[in-house]
């Protein structure tokens, strides 16, 4: 039962991570590309880490809570990275003279 749940979270997570990267690869401009990695990939890694918690808690060595740290870290840093990349993009566009804003 727990194994099935682990497998489910793994597959959901991996699928979202892939969708985020597909978005990064195929959308036409930088600001649209930003959406894939910041949301889908972040949730994807969240799913994989939940699967990891379930898997290692099932090994009989107590509950594994390590993964919460990585999850929290990724969830707090992903928007910051996205914000900085967006700012960089705006800045470079402004310097090159295309008025995006």
């Amino acid at each position, binding site marked *: 039962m727990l194994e099935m749940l682990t497998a489910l979270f793994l597959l959901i997570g991996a699928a979202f991570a892939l969708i985020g*990267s*597909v978005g990064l690869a195929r959308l036409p401009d930088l600001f649209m590309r930003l959406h894939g990695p910041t949301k889908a990939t972040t949730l994807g890694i969240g799913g994989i880490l939940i699967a*990891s918690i379930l898997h290692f808690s099932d090994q009989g060595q107590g509950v594994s809570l390590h993964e919460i740290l990585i999850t929290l870290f990724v969830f707090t840093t992903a928007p910051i990275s996205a914000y900085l990349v967006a700012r960089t993009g705006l800045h*470079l566009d402004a310097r090159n003279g295309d008025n995006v804003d």
Partner: protein
Amino acid sequence: MLKLAVAIALACIGAALLLNFWRLVRGPGPADRILALDTMYVNTTALLVLLGIHLNRTVYFEAALLIALMGFVGTVALCKYLLRGDIIE
């Protein structure tokens, strides 16, 4: 069952990394490349966690955590450089 799921997940993350790499090479702007690199870091973190599940070892967490840390610091540093280099100019 779990073995199969891990294998499929590894394949997904591998494909995601290839797509990221394509964007990294293709560009076109520096911001796109930074974004691609940042996504690669996140996907690599996922890959390490998956490897940990696959090999049933917990030692990979530290590596995953460090990769996540380095990715964030690297992205911030690159963005700051591009943002600030202009002010000094």
